């Protein structure tokens, strides 16, 4: 005889639980943390490289870099002034998950840091589904990607707490309708705080880093 057993459990429940554990670990060490997500080439590592020198003498920063392979990004973060930089190679996985971040947290003496920056694997789909336990999720959009990305990747745009629009120095050269882009963002994530900037020229960087410092301070 067949019996139906009701369950109603979110499929990624196990990951969500671990994310909560990661968050309590960061909380109890007094570390504020952000998860930076974007497509490959949007400028995640460049933004981190330009952010670190601006936080010097203000915050002690650790960076965790997720990539399918290589330690290029962690090396760049270390060279840019991160007090610690840990590379996670996912070996083919398209996103970081809470287990991977837990492994990285175990390698850090969290009491030595004010801010943890997690750089996710370059991907506009999967990272949105896997909570890590960081305090805030940040998405970097970049001008050459095109203005239709909120419409094509709604899951990513919906779940974030702040949006960086990188490479604004390319606006004169690329057909990017900012109002069309912003309309899509507004539907998916009403009122999300937005930082238009260029990690290359430095334009807009101060607003972003000041916000970050404020976030960390308000957490203390």
């Amino acid at each position, binding site marked *: 005889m067949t019996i*139906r057993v009701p369950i*109603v459990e979110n499929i990624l429940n196990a990951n969500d639980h671990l994310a909560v554990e990661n968050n309590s670990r960061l909380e109890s060490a007094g570390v504020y943390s952000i998860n930076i997500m974007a497509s490959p080439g949007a400028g995640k590592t460049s933004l981190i490289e330009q952010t670190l020198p601006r936080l010097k003498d203000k915050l002690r920063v650790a960076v965790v870099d997720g990539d399918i392979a290589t330690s290029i990004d962690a090396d760049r973060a270390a060279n840019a002034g991160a007090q610690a930089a840990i590379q996670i190679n996912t070996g083919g996985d398209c996103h970081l998950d809470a287990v991977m971040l837990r492994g990285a947290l175990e390698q850090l003496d969290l009491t030595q840091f004010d801010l943890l920056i997690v750089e996710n694997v370059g991907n506009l789909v999967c990272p949105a589904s896997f909570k890590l336990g960081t305090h805030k999720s940040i998405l970097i959009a970049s001008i050459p990607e095109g203005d239709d990305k909120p*419409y094509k990747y709604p899951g990513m745009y919906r779940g974030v707490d702040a949006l960086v629009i990188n490479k604004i120095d390319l606006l004169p050269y690329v057909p990017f309708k900012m109002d069309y882009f912003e*309309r899509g963002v507004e539907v998916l994530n009403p009122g999300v705080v937005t930082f238009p900037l260029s990690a290359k020229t430095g334009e807009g960087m101060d607003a972003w880093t000041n916000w970050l410092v404020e976030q960390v301070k308000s957490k203390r």
Partner: protein
Amino acid sequence: MHELVVTQSILDISLRHAQKAGAEKITGINLVIGEFASIVDDSVQFYWELYAQGTIAQNAQLHFERIAGEMTCTNCKLSFHPKDTDFACPDCKSEFVQITKGDEFRVESIDVE
């Protein structure tokens, strides 16, 4: 791309609840997946056949109930299926709309013997 992890989670959840219910065999797994949840049914089915081997769920049928995405206009309250390239309300053209369906991603129930 992460169907492997998803399949493993579906199996873990199903086996845990089957054990609690004292089941000998899982014959069906009922999943509810919204349009905005990014998984491919065929890939999950493919991994299932590998992963569930040797467990009490190895012959279980996976049933996918797909929920269509829905947005609701906060101005005129119309619920509609959004177009790919435009989220505005098709009736009153308002851009103040909210996503009201399509995020579902859960194991609803299992059928056991």
